[in-house]
């Protein structure tokens, strides 16, 4: 039960320590590449850049990537490796997918095995998964250099090359071999037809022939390593890491989960190494680890240790009085009858939407970890999590800095940190300082801009869709859970996470789909825009903040200086994250998962 999450946290921490040393070594440029790789590097290294040039290079490269991605997906019907002749996706879905993969979100408004050819899986999915993960990594590196007071923060293109080639590729190759050994397909074929053991169990065709089972295969073993290592989360198959060919065994599940934790853990320690403040980074690391443990424990306690409440007994009948304009006296009474339990042995917890081969608590553990590190892969159906358990993944996305995605999670944490330092400064009446530099109005403004994008991008569109038929037509579960579905979709988009409550009808699929979902296009465009805004503003604004702070004169260390490597500082940071996060999102949590948990179960139908 608890062994799996403990083993994962311990292994990831143990691996992150040597890996952070390696990452710092690479990013400081202290290595000597082999001659052939050095040639590539010289070709793209255009010299060290100021933070503004760095940001411009980052944005231009992403714009190029956007055009490339759009072209690859739009041209899918005429590209090779497409024996099933898969057509073109709807234009809005292409926009959504390109934005999604470019921003490291990997929210999928399509199902991989249904809608993408192997060509698209390789040339769109794999490429974006490497490069979008690299972008966040580079942004953090630039911020660190700016914090150090460097006017020139390195070269974006050279940084990208180093991250991708010297860190992601070797790690992905190792993971890939392990995954294939465990049972992941790795072939350029597309599908096999097999005749089932019990003939005609799949049904019969109109001519009376037994239908075969079609098993989709492909270069799964190449997509999944970088999907996890890059905390991308965009699966080869529609059901992602729950699919037996995308996650064949308990071991593959362990490595999969470990892979997505690896670099987020590493980056926190790399931050300390490159700033020469390792104790400080360990304080941050511990705060994050504590928050992660909290989300995991919450999910396991309410999902694995509790049965699915839809099948259990609710022995007492309850009567509610609610205000109603229509009934006499302005009040209406509702009585919910008692519910008897169904004879189902649920000692393994809520099994709806869970796979058996990963281990009992694997679904809940994965659900918590995947949102903390903004991976967004899923190995169970989040829509079917117990209502209160689903609060854990949502909270992870709302806070969005529990290790967080490649670099971006650490950047988000820096925003909370600046706010925390500011609050502490206010309390004692001193000018707040961070890294020995005074935090001024400009830094606070930039931090607040970056910090507030996230809640605005979640709460605004959720409100809009919940109030209109765009949202209500798309939900497949009644009541509070329907609201949760919309809330989750925008939380996932804004956190650049990519997991989803899959019941939401957002999959338009191919352009010639005769029965598109009623609001598929609106969802495509809205979530696509949210992903773009919530990606680039929180990268550029913190970079500006770091530059502004880093170029200030250091103030001497004194008695009144707030030390950033103590438990007190850890508590301050922890408190800031929890309080700010709760202030922003408690109201919607009450309308969604909390209302569902406290309200009538079962409901509707």
């Amino acid at each position, binding site marked *: 039960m608890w*062994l799996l999450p403990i083993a994962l946290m311990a292994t990831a921490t143990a691996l992150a320590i040597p890996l952070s040393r390696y990452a710092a070594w690479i990013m400081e440029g202290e290595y000597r590449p082999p001659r052939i790789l050095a040639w590539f590097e010289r070709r793209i290294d255009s010299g060290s850049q100021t933070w503004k040039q760095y940001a411009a290079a980052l944005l231009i*490269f992403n714009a*190029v*990537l956007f055009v490339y991605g759009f072209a690859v997906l739009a041209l899918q019907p005429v590209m090779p490796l497409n024996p099933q002749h898969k057509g073109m996706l709807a234009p809005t879905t292409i926009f959504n997918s390109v934005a999604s993969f470019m921003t490291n979100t990997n929210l999928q408004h399509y199902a991989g*095995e249904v809608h993408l050819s192997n060509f698209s899986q390789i040339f769109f999915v*794999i*490429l974006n998964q490497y490069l979008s993960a690299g972008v966040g990594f580079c942004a953090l590196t630039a911020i660190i250099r700016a914090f150090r007071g460097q006017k020139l923060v390195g070269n974006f293109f050279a940084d990208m090359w180093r991250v*991708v080639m010297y860190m992601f590729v070797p790690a992905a*190759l190792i993971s890939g071999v392990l995954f*294939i*050994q465990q049972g992941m*397909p*790795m*072939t350029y074929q597309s599908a096999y037809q*097999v*005749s*089932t*053991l*019990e003939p005609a*169990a799949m049904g019969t065709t109109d001519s009376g022939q037994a239908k075969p*089972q079609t*098993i*989709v295969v492909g270069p799964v073993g*190449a997509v999944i390593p970088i999907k996890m290592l890059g905390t991308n989360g965009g699966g080869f198959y*529609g059901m992602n890491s*729950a*699919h*037996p*060919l995308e996650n*064949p065994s308990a071991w593959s599940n362990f490595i999969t989960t470990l892979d997505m934790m690896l670099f987020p853990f590493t980056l926190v320690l790399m931050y300390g190494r490159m700033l020469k403040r390792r104790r400080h980074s360990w304080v941050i690391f511990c705060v994050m680890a504590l928050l992660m443990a909290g989300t995991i424990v919450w999910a396991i306690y309410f999902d694995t240790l509790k049965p*699915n409440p839809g099948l259990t007994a609710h022995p007492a009948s309850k009567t509610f009085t609610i205000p109603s304009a229509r009934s006499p006296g302005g009040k209406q009474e509702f009585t919910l*009858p008692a519910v*008897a*339990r*169904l004879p*189902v*042995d649920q000692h*393994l917890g*809520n099994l*709806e*939407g869970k*796979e*058996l*081969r*990963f*281990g*009992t608590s694997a679904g809940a553990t994965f659900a918590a970890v995947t949102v903390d590190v903004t991976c967004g892969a*899923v190995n169970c159906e989040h829509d*079917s999590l117990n*209502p209160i358990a689903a609060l854990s993944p949502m909270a992870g996305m709302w806070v969005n800095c529990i290790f967080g995605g490649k670099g971006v999670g650490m950047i988000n944490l820096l925003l909370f940190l600046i706010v925390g330092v500011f609050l502490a400064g206010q309390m004692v009446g001193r000018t707040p300082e961070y890294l020995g530099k005074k935090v001024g109005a400009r830094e606070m403004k930039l931090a607040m801009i970056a910090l507030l994008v996230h809640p605005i991008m979640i709460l605004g569109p959720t409100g809009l869709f919940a109030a209109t038929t765009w949202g209500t037509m798309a939900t*497949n*579960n*009644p009541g509070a*859970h329907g609201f949760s579905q919309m809330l989750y979709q925008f939380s996932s988009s804004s956190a650049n996470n990519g997991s989803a409550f899959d*019941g939401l009808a957002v999959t338009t699929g191919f352009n010639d789909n005769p029965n598109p979902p009623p609001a598929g296009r609106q969802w495509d465009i809205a979530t696509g825009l949210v992903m773009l805004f919530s990606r680039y503003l929180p990268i550029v604004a913190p970079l500006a903040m770091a530059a502004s702070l880093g170029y200030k004169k250091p103030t001497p260390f004194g008695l009144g200086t707030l030390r950033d490597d103590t438990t007190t500082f850890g508590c301050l940071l922890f408190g800031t994250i929890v309080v700010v996060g709760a202030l922003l999102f408690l109201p919607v949590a009450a309308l969604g998962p909390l209302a*569902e948990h406290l309200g009538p*179960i079962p*409901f*509707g*139908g």
Partner: protein
Amino acid sequence: MSRYISTSLWLLLFSVVILCGIYPAVLWVVGQTIFPFQANGSILTGPDGKPVGSLLIAQPFTKDEYFHPRPSAASYDASASASSTLAASNYLLRDRVARALGPIVTYRSGARAGQLVAPDIEAWFRLDHFAGQPHIVAQWADAHNELAGAWVNADPSHAQYVDTWAKSHPSVVAHWIKDNPGTPQPKAADLAVAFFEAFSKENPGSFPAAVTRQTSDGKTVTTIQAVKEGGDIQSIFFDMWRQDHPTADLREVPADMVMTSGSGLDPHITLQNALYQLDRVATKWAADTQRDPVKIRQEIHALLEENAQAPFGGLVGEEMVNVLSVNLQLRKRYGNPS
């Protein structure tokens, strides 16, 4: 600016070559040379030497001779994985589980321990009283409008039956239109609740279900008729029966037998689930092969124990068996099921 664009293009070009060309090719070579079985989808061959399925992908089994996999929200379609996406709070989840339970649940204790509950559900249904009120079907449709509508849409013959009913009950339809002025021309599904209310009063203790019979000239005809027993009643009304009999001591069914997996393709069931199915499987094979049921049961039990595996040797999960693998071994050992 233009320099950054050209450098971006160079980086993109190098990335495409290395990440989309060389990287998957290396893994492909490793997969195809060292792990060809896994790299090609873990395909098993059947008794006739042809591919019969993937070790990792569930496939449907309906015969009593075989162990049945977990229910699938994807209908076992390995080219379109899917989960149910039903929230725990959604009544449709409880309804789906209850329908699966009705025909298979047995008593755990008392005089009828081991016997099916289903005949009692039918007897209770014929008395046509739920929670002390008459007309079970009308109460069901009132409480679950969505399910009543779903029944109408489930099959064209159902909708046809309701249409025929609507023609012979113009006053009920007129009344419905008066209550729902927004829908002047209701479809069959719109009228579902009104239909079941009227049906329940006209046919107490009955439910409309498909009945297949032979005509005098030897053809089989399927029509919808009011029936007082059968699978529909056992499954649809099990949940209501349970509400009326909350204290009946029933044998617990393993959860993975009635709850769908995340992918709809989970190839395993728990050992507990397999043992629950063991009696049915063993009895049927014994009848097919004309051998001693006790002996067969022992053999199959041993086979299950042999095939049982737990994640990490039981450190993180419970024992389970691969359904296709076990059924393939049964097929090889006992021949073709009748």
